[in-house]
């Protein structure tokens, strides 16, 4: 095949370049711009170099938030993934109840974040909330506004309630794609229920599960609205996740320089972890895990 070289073809990518520039590159560069300057108001900026990055790297506040954030993502993944798979395995395969389950499970996914937060904020209140009131009457000492442990339990329960469906639906889609012959062959081979899960269902679900883990990780790592509505990051700063901390710093204290440096590092951490996920995923695929 003879290919003609025509440099005008570059014009065809121009619209995309412009769009991406406005939607991503320019905002990001603004942040970069803030991160290397200092301002004392009056729209006067002074070059600060990497000072803010240095400062942030030695700041316990960011490290603590990062630690909480990792713990939060780790816990919800450890609960939502196995629970989602378990739910998917026990869902009806076809008929009215299959559709019913799908609709019911999609419901939490459709509720706006701050509504979810509000629901749980009320749900957990000791004076009027169903959960808080019941626990209190049962003699269990529960108060998410004062006890850090209770606050954590509440926001984790909330996230599990909100997002397990997503994992379950993805896993269910994976399960549905398994031809009947596999189950029949397993019966012929006298495979145990566990062996069917381990050697048929899990391998076939692996692809969608990886996507589910990646989605849930990224989403939970950037979580803001729900814990903010429920606990406001408290008691103290025990449920202050990275995003909450960042907003406090940028808008509450108006520390634009450190907040910008923080943002960039936050972005790089997500990018790095996602890259690791992606590499591991594609490698597993290639090796034929």
């Amino acid at each position: 095949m003879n290919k003609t070289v025509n440099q005008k073809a570059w014009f065809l990518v121009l619209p995309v370049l412009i769009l991406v520039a406005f939607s991503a590159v320019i905002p990001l560069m603004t942040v970069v711009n803030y991160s290397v300057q200092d301002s004392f108001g009056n729209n006067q900026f002074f070059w600060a170099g990497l000072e803010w990055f240095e400062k942030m790297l030695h700041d316990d506040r960011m490290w603590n938030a990062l630690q909480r954030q990792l713990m939060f993502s780790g816990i919800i993944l450890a609960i939502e993934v196995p629970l989602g798979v378990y739910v998917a395995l026990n869902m009806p395969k076809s008929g009215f109840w299959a559709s019913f389950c799908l609709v019911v499970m999609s419901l939490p996914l459709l509720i706006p974040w701050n509504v979810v937060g509000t629901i749980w904020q009320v749900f957990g209140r000791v004076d009027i909330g169903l959960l808080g009131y019941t626990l209190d009457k049962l003699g269990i000492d529960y108060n998410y506004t004062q006890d850090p442990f209770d606050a954590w339990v509440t926001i984790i329960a909330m996230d599990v309630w909100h997002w397990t469906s997503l994992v379950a639906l993805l896993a269910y889609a994976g399960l549905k794609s398994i031809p009947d012959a596999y189950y029949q062959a397993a019966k012929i081979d006298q495979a145990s229920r566990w062996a069917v899960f381990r050697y048929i269902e899990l391998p076939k679900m692996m692809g969608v599960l990886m996507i589910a883990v990646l989605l849930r990780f990224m989403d939970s790592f950037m979580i803001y609205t729900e814990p903010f509505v429920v606990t406001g990051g408290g008691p103290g700063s025990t449920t202050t996740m990275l995003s909450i901390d960042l907003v406090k710093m940028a808008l509450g204290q108006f520390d634009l320089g450190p907040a910008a440096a923080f943002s960039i590092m936050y972005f790089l951490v997500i990018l790095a972890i996602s890259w690791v996920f992606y590499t591991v995923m594609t490698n597993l695929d290639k090796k034929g895990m």
Partner: protein
Amino acid sequence: MARITLDNLAHSYLPNPKSEDDFALKELNHDWEDGAAYALLGSSGCGKSTLLNIISGLLHPSQGRILFNGEDVTQATTADRNIAQVFQFPVVYDTMTVRDNLSFPLRNRGEDPAYVAARVQEIATMIGMEAELDRKARGLTADAKQKISLGRGMVRKDVNALLFDEPLTVIDPHMKWELRTQLKKLHHDFGHTMIYVTHDQTEALTFADKVVVMYDGRVVQIGTPEELFERPAHTFVGYFIGSPGMNVIPAQVEGARAIVHGTELALPDGYGTITGKTAIGIRPEFARLSADAGLPVKVRRVEDVGRHKLVRAELFGQEINIVAGEDDQISPDMTRVWFDPAHVNVYADDWRVAPQGRAA
């Protein structure tokens, strides 16, 4: 190894079947003899796989019983029936090695590891995959995967029956022959009862001692390949077996005569009075073009198919096929077709009518 008896068996996929049309498998009584090799032949959707799945216990019949050696197993699980089955599309455990795939059915039954290892080696040799034993099953080609499926089916020695559901569909032709030969050898060596579902007549005829032909949820004929060829019990068998299939020509039959569009044809046997839609069936192999004897035909086309010639002709407006020898001359004055009376079968409503005895 077992004799498998089907007693009044029928199956419908509908919860409340009303008419006979609702049944995917119509009422059936049959004995599968211990140690025989059967081919279950029929076009797609005729109920072959349904029947197979009922025998292996993957499906529970709507009515009737299944007996293994006289013992009722209708409600028994697949595991209890101890049956091996190979499916049309390869089923392999992707994350296991080829070796683990082959040993899986044995290990699930708690066989001795030394025996398992030896047996897997044997099977691997049989399917020609010794070299691949330690690689993962994922990423193998479709026919390699199907060979593993076959191997898993054959790995147990003590099974009551071996069922194959069109297992060679995805295998390339050269390998097909080899595997079919291996299956025959396996049958010869161990004497398992084997049932082999296929829609390929060559496969059925070469593999089986007895061929069971199914049509529209019904078993229409069970017989040796010769019987199916010489005396098809149903026009479907005549049409399905043979290449090309039997010519079925509408005719009136009276005693030992058949009348085709006013032209009389002598039959070797008497048939009494037959009611219903009557027809005569003649295989292309037993029809001859001739210049003077027989019914008038118009030759449309002659195809040379290698070992013989295939004549497409028109008989009273109906297309018929005639097989002529490779060296036979076909000249323009051959305007008649002659049917060998010994090989003419008579059908009423598509079912073969047995002759009543030699005509005087």
